[in-house]
């Protein structure tokens, strides 16, 4: 098993304008996703939703500035850390990850345990 990070990139404005019903649907989709990871032979190790990029602070060369590292239309809004046997499994899980206003990026975690 190897670890993968699923990064969820979505258009933040879509959530600002979303109705309570839509938000409810999204919440349910994420709850469902948590169950599906195991069905796909993976394991959910953790994950979180992030506050909007308006709350972000960036640091370059010790200089602290207001805002995200890069201004993009679709911003990192949350992540899951999963265990999966290989990339194909991780991608299958990534496809199930809710991200209706954007998409996800699947990145293998660098194993530094030396094993």
């Amino acid at each position, binding site marked *: 098993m190897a670890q993968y990070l699923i990064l969820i990139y979505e258009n933040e404005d879509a959530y600002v304008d979303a109705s309570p019903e839509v938000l409810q649907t999204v919440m349910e989709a994420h709850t469902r996703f948590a169950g599906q990871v195991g069905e796909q032979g993976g394991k959910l190790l953790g994950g979180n939703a992030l*506050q*909007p990029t*308006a*709350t*972000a*602070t960036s640091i370059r060369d010790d200089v*602290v*500035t*207001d*805002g995200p590292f890069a201004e993009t239309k679709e911003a990192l809004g949350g992540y899951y850390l999963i265990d999966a046997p290989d990339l194909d499994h991780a991608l299958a899980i990534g496809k199930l990850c809710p991200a209706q206003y954007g998409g996800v990026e699947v990145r293998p975690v660098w194993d530094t345990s030396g094993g």
Partner: protein
Amino acid sequence: MLAATARVTRDLDLAEECVQDAYVAALGAWSRGGIPRNPGAWLTTTARRRALDALRRDRTLRAKLPLLIDPGPPPAGDGPAWPGGTGPDGGSGAGWAAEGDVIPDDRLRLVFTCCHPALAREAQVALTLRLVCGLTTGEIARAFLVSEPTMAARVTRAKKKISAARIAYRVPAAAELPERLDAVLTVVHLLYTTGHTAPAGNDLVRADLVDRAIGLARMIRELMPDEREARGLLALLLLTDARRDTRADAGGRLLLLADQDRSRWDRGAIDEGTALVAGALRGGSPGRFALQAAIAALHAEAPSYSETDWPQLLQLYGELLRAWPSPVVALNRAVVRAMVDGPEPALAEIAGLERDGRLAGYRYLPAAKADLLRRLGRNAEAARAYQAALELTDNAAEREFLSRRITEVSAG
């Protein structure tokens, strides 16, 4: 008072409401029982109670923002006490030390929160005016020439970030203090320079902004008496502002330092500023505000423009450039160098700054260059440089001055 209340609620909007509530309550209570010995403390106590009440009522709010209340007991007793200071410890939210909890510390905490580097500079300035100075959003919008909804959105967004990202409401610990204090002083200085020469409009000086900035500098200096740069900033602002009334003639036309009536400079402000400079320069290498104040003091003490100690000024600018390697400082040093070594070497330095490119769009670069060219009798080049400066300013007094110069060199 807002500061003290914000400490309890950790929510600036709620704090503002509670402070409003306290004023309303005060009007009722004071008309019945007379004004208490210390109205400020009374108001703070009342606002805090209301904040705590509001928080107790609103459990959802508490669930949403788990850090709303500092750990610690609610206030006990109701004497309008005004205790002496517990020092700013920068500790980990140790709660309030005692009833009344040292108002000056709270104001300092509020300043550091408003000027936190994780907030954009324009948001720092707006928040400081809104929350520390108590200006309305409309007043701030007018001062910075943006629409009121734009300014309201800027302030709201900044408040949200403070809450969501959990920007600490405290005076920074010693290790980070120099950098954080520099950010605070920079905001106050920016406020002053915006008022000193308004970026647009008919008035050269925006007195309201200038007075706010000096008030803030004075407050910070009183709250942090050991910080030499806080002392330096207050000195700089006082010494610069001492010349306020002489910077334009009766018709509102801009007068340069050489042409100002020195007998009308504010002696009281100069004496206070000069005394502060001495302390700001003492002990270790001085910071940029102390050095700028020293420069302003040398100008203030000179009996006339021609009797100014230019070599000493040149040396101070050299030190300032080392402490603060900014192209603006380099430009100023070049102007002073012209007084010591003549216009040619100064023009060479300015040419270097033009190639550097960081001052592109900075109106004082072509203006300084034009002045040196004019002194050399290179009138055609001077006219072109004055024209370049003219195109970069929207201030009516500055535009009038530059137009006048263009006419002079074109006729000569």
